[in-house]
């Protein structure tokens, strides 16, 4: 009895979480423009999606900003983390605490404060303001991911290298970076996803001349339900599910490999 109640409650929550996604997927193949009627299976909304110039532009902005912001933020973030690793504990504490601000602050507050900042400085809104905003929050995430990995490096290794006459740059490339490779990758991945998915901060810092996918979806949704948005949503949901399965598979294979190595 208790077991059934538990199963039913889990089932209901899962239904709640997945119902809108399933409904959207079904409607994306409905050839009728009206939601209530089913006029047969069709790919025409997908065809319309491909032809939609607004979305193409938005996709271009989304990807180019995410790629640029990720690269720049990862470089800055890694160097700042290395600097923090070397610095005195007082300075380290002050900077790492301040670094949490863009992460904890609600996006709305970050977004409008940057918007007003750009307005005051009379900076023209567009690609560059949106890119700068993305770099700002991406750097914070990269530092949060990379710094803990750095802290695992025993400082004795670095002292030993210095005693043997290694230059700073050699220490950086031969000792530090190889040991935090995983962290850098994870930080960059997190920055990239945050950037791709961001709406609020982009919305306030893009102005009229730039857009991204989230901003376009917002303006389309405000005008009401459009069948090609259903098609877009379906493609994005399927993409995400494939990505999750892929990551899961890679993780499982890693585990398997680890297990095999352990047995040897």
């Amino acid at each position, binding site marked *: 009895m208790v077991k059934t109640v538990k199963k039913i*409650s*889990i089932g209901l*929550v899962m239904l709640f*979480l*997945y119902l*809108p*996604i399933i*409904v*959207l997927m079904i*409607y994306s193949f409905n050839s009728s423009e009206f*939601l*209530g009627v089913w006029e047969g299976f069709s790919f025409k909304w997908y065809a319309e999606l491909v032809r939609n110039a607004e979305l193409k532009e938005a996709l271009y902005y989304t990807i180019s900003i995410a790629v640029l912001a990720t690269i720049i933020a990862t470089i800055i973030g890694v*160097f*700042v983390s*290395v*600097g923090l*690793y*070397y*610095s*005195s504990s007082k*300075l*380290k504490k002050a*900077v790492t605490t*301040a*670094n949490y*601000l863009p992460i904890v602050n*609600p996006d*709305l*507050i*970050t977004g*409008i*404060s*940057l*918007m*007003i*900042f750009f*307005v*005051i400085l009379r900076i023209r809104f567009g690609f560059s303001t949106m890119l700068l905003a993305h770099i*700002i929050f991406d750097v914070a995430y990269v530092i949060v991911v990379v710094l803990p990995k750095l802290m695992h490096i025993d400082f004795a290794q670095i002292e030993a290298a210095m005693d043997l006459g290694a230059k*700073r740059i050699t220490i950086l490339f031969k000792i530090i970076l190889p040991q935090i490779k995983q962290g850098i990758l994870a930080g960059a991945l997190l920055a990239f996803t945050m950037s791709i*998915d961001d*709406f609020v901060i982009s919305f*306030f810092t893009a102005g009229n001349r730039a857009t991204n*996918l*989230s901003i376009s*979806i*917002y303006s389309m*949704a405000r005008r*009401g*339900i459009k069948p090609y*948005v*259903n098609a*877009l*949503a379906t493609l*994005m*949901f399927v993409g*995400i*599910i494939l*990505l999750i399965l892929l990551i*899961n598979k890679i993780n499982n294979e890693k585990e398997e490999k680890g297990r095999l190595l352990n047995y040897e």
Partner: protein
Amino acid sequence: MSKKYNGIVIFYGVWVLILIILPLLIVFAISFIDGDIYDLSSVSFTLDNYKQAFSKNYFGVMTKSIWMALECNIICFLIGYPIAYIISEMKSKNRNIMVLLLLAPMWSNFLLRTYSWMVVLGNNGPINSLLKSIGVGSVQLMYNDFGVILGMVYNFLPFMILPIYLSLTRIDSGLVEAAKDLGATNKNVFFRVKFPLSIPGVFSGTTLVFLPAITSFVISRLLGGGQYILIGNLIEHKLVVQQEWQVGSAIAVVLMIILLAFLAVLRKVARNKLELSLW
């Protein structure tokens, strides 16, 4: 040697100061000025922006926003706690699958998640089509409080479930066994051992739900409609549409004060609760 890297740390300190802290201070400063924000000689100190921010209409929007965020929080807790508890009692393999299933929708675009409910709740959506076909007739499911709360709960429920789930799974099973050995009933084990120990999870879940709920303007715009206004919509309207920087900033400052007050109250309650549970 270690000094040589200080340059980059100081660079980042300045970066944070100029790009993160200074913009916040500017919002604060602008909320107190009257006049052209581009012409420093024309500005003067005023409290008028706050008078406007607390005018009857806007004050109503603020109390409504707080109320909606609290309502969303309570619903998320009432649904989230039992679900977190059920998942925490599963076998570890099933647990991981459940957590993955809970998180998967969160990885899709937030706008699309909210938009999908416009399709489901709409007049021609599946629910209303069903109601019409069985003769009930169509029911207004969105462009009202119901739609907005539903959208908020949908988007933020996992933020409540996960921290509670984590604090439940971290409970030392020895404590539960000890309680049972001493003759505690299942009910007592839950109310005197498990629930008190999961309270930190409830508090972090509450924070994680309240912050996005009270600052949200997308959910209220899409599922509440163009006439539906919460504090986030008000700020967006003042800044993006009307470009009234001063009043918009004043409302934003009020929002930040609401957030800080909420966190302070929560921290105080948490401290009292934790002291109680030590007894």
